[in-house]
């Protein structure tokens, strides 16, 4: 499997990369780790005249935790997300989820930017970013703008990012309380059959704040306000969990594929969410 031919660019600044993307329009595409893009190019499902390698752009690297805000450069790899102690302190759910993505070889090269920009419903980071209420920082020919992760996904592989924009960084508030990322997959290294990202804060025995988002159960990640409403103010008792799962079932739209029929996916989604809420609550 050999990809089609292309012109290769290795710019050293965000401005240069954006200029190349702007010049060639939809003939050009950025490559970060390449572990979503190259398989598509090998299958000739993506045919690009220009490939813009982001690896030499220093400004896209690094993790900073500043008072209560976390900023992660687009080119930070999943391996680096797992290794970062400051990040594990500020938002431990990132490490928990990253450890469940693909396998070690893929995590060494796969980046957070590529994972969220890709728009593949199977990717784990998009729902996680919605759960964290992250902001995506995009730079294009006309400057930089912020887009909420919860507004970013339009359909499978379609996002709010313009062709000539680069995702440069991801920003979100440090988390409080309990967290869990629960993922069911057919085998280690596989994409999710269903996964749930949950954050829970408690005030005494009552749930004072919550966030819930689901992976691979629709053509976009599912941020689940109904489930959140069912949890907040409850004591996270069985009836609150039932209500949260029921609300989540309303919000998802799984499709049958090689990971199973719709009924099975709904069943697994319910189990993942229940487990994630229970584990997040136990850590809150």
């Amino acid at each position, binding site marked *: *499997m*050999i*990809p*089609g*031919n*292309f*012109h*290769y660019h*290795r710019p050293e600044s965000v401005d240069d990369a954006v200029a190349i993307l702007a010049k060639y329009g939809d003939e050009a595409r950025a*490559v970060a780790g*390449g*572990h979503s893009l*190259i*398989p598509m*190019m*090998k299958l000739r499902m993506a045919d690009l005249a220009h*490939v813009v*390698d982001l*690896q030499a752009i220093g400004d896209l690297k690094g993790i900073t935790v500043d008072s209560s805000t976390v900023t992660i450069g687009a080119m930070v790899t999943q*391996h680096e997300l797992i290794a970062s102690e400051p990040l594990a302190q500020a938002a431990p759910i990132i490490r928990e989820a990253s450890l469940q993505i*693909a*396998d*070690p*070889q*893929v995590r*060494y*090269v796969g980046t957070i930017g590529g994972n969220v920009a890709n728009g593949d419903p199977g990717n784990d980071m998009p729902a996680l970013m919605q759960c964290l209420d992250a902001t995506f920082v995009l730079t294009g020919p006309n400057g930089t703008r912020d887009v909420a992760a919860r507004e970013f996904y339009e359909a499978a592989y379609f996002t709010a990012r313009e062709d000539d924009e680069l995702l440069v960084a991801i920003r979100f508030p440090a988390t409080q309380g309990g967290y869990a990322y629960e993922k069911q997959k057919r085998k*280690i*290294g596989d994409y999710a059959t269903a996964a749930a990202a949950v954050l829970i804060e408690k005030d005494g025995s009552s749930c004072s704040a919550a966030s819930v988002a689901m992976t691979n159960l629709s053509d976009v990640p599912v941020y689940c306000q109904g489930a959140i409403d069912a949890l907040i103010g409850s004591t996270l008792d069985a009836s609150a969990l039932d209500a949260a799962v029921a609300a989540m079932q309303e919000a998802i739209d799984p499709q049958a594929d090689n990971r199973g029929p719709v009924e099975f996916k709904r069943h697994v989604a319910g189990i993942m969410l229940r487990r994630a809420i229970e584990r997040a609550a136990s850590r809150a």
Partner: protein
Amino acid sequence: MDKMHFKVTVNGKQEELLVEPRELLIHVLREKLGVTGPHIGCETSHCGACTVDMDGKSVKSCTVFAAQANGADVTTIEGLGTPDGLHVLQQMFKEHHGLQCGFCTPGMITRAYRLLQENPDPSEEDVRFGMSGNLCRCTGYQNIVKAVLASAAELNAVKEAAQ
């Protein structure tokens, strides 16, 4: 499309050649440089038979453009030991019957090499998790895990003796 000048260090030896940017690292290694230790298994980034060490990371060389690897420092199974002086991992794979048909072995050992660099004292669970990007079609995992654990013990014993 234009070929590019491609420089790479493979097992300590500097190489310079012309490649198309789209060529995959595995093809450059095997077909242009004659380094045939890394194998082409699934070609879909799943099986890990093509694993090499690139700039201190285990990567699946079927999913790396030559262009991305320009300037890289690559170690393959050929760089870890010789038939007369086996690497500890090679010795332990032999002793613990971690080979079976042997097709996945170069990728397994190259991956295990990096795993032990990062975690010299892994638990069995660490080894299973750390080797999860490498598939063995004989499903000989049990002995592969034993061989990696035995290598860790051996390397640690050597280190202790040196101190």
